[in-house]
């Protein structure tokens, strides 16, 4: 699923944020990446969908080699992943339903199929009556649940989540963790979550990667 071999990450010519990281994430793995603020957790996650380029090393994600990945391949890679962002990244001009339909539409599914899927997922994230609302009309927790529904909508092989419950109330956080656990357990989707704090009594076996001083190690 993800195979990193001596990868170095950083911005411009500054010091590397991630130094010679080497790890493997398998299908159906549930992985937490933890570390202090500014340790490079989000940078590492961004490298998985090539939002940041590798400085050196090799990185394979869903069999795509991210070294000098071409535009067409990059699109295919991103279509195969579901991403949850800390700041939700919902399109404010789209309704909730249209936001969830976006990955499906990009993957070429019909309007009807995409809409049906969006409505199913809205029930799962406990927002069945919000289909026609715009993101600005929702609370932060509700917006993040829409973000999770969008990430799950096209049945991706891998979900990447960057601090998905960072600023949320307990109820929304619970809904999101339950959905991610279900996706992993029942659908076999690999989940990689960047977080400050792993929830107590998570109730699912998981792997934990920690980042400290640019080094990634599994604990």
């Amino acid at each position, binding site marked *: 699923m993800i195979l990193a071999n001596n990868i170095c990450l950083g911005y411009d010519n500054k010091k590397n944020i991630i130094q010679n990281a080497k790890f493997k994430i398998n299908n159906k793995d549930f992985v937490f990446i933890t570390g202090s603020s500014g340790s490079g957790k989000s940078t590492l996650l961004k490298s998985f*969908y090539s*939002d940041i380029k590798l400085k050196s090393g090799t990185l394979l994600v869903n069999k795509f080699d991210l070294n000098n990945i071409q*535009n067409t391949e*990059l*699109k*295919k*890679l*991103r*279509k*195969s992943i579901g*991403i949850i962002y800390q700041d939700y*990244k*919902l*399109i*404010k*001009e*789209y309704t909730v339903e249209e936001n969830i339909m*976006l*990955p499906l*539409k*990009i*993957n070429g599914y019909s309007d009807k199929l995409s809409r049906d899927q969006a409505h199913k997922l809205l029930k799962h994230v406990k927002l069945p009556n919000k289909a026609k609302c715009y993101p600005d009309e929702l609370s932060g927790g509700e917006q993040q649940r829409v973000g999770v529904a969008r990430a799950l909508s096209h049945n991706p092989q891998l979900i990447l989540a960057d601090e998905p419950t960072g600023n949320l109330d307990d109820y929304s956080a619970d809904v999101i963790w339950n959905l991610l656990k279900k996706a992993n357990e029942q659908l076999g989707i690999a989940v990689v979550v960047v977080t400050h704090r792993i929830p107590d009594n998570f109730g699912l076996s998981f792997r934990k990667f920690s980042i400290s001083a640019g080094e990634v190690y599994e604990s």
Partner: protein
Amino acid sequence: MNLKRFISFTIPLVVMLFTFAMYLSINKIVKSYETSINNDYSIILVSSTPIIKSNLTSLSGLDIKSINHLKRGKILQNFKDEVSTGTYKLLEKKLPYFYTINLDKFPTSSKLKEIKEKLEKIKGIKRVETFSKNHDNVYSLFLLVKSVVAILFLCIIIFTFLIMLNNVKIWFYEHSNRLSIIKLHGGSIYYGAKPIINIAIISSVLSSIFVILIVYFLKENLSEILQPELLNVVSKNLTDFTNLEIASVFIISLVISFTTVFGILLKHRLK
């Protein structure tokens, strides 16, 4: 669709297409004027021997439309009562042949000089009168009109194109957040830019229809706008707004809209 963005894209396009339609019409008027002054323009040849068109064409290499012999009898008639019979007979024997030549195209001043030189070299030709001074004045005015129209058209095209470019850039700026989210989900820039591509298509069609309607409206109401002297020349040419010209307005409209949108799309794609 954002109405404000739609209008700000469409207005420059309408201005540009209207200028193009006017350019086509003025060009036709100028062309028609060119034909008319060419029909009225002729060179006079004085030759000691008779001339026939094919000989003159092969000898001079010119595109001659017609050559007319000026009847000597008419010229001699003027002297008949004023000179003696003997002198008249001598005049009849010695008087050269006079011809007027009409050319296929209205010549440039330099071409006219060249024509004169070529004709003067032909054996038997005594004199060539091109009325070059008068010709030069007409030709300069003619060139001025043509150049002014072309420069004006070019300026308007450039300015309106820049305005449209700016509008599309603003659109991309306003929608940069949406475009980046779509890119993060593996969508192409074209997928994200569907709304602006739709605006471009609708604007092109509506602008073309609007401009063609304006042209037809002007044609129908020319008497209110133009002086009667100009009316005949202008209305005739506007009436002849052909299907090909209508099609060219549509094509130009689409080409300009798509060049603007896809130019910026390409820039974003390369980023």
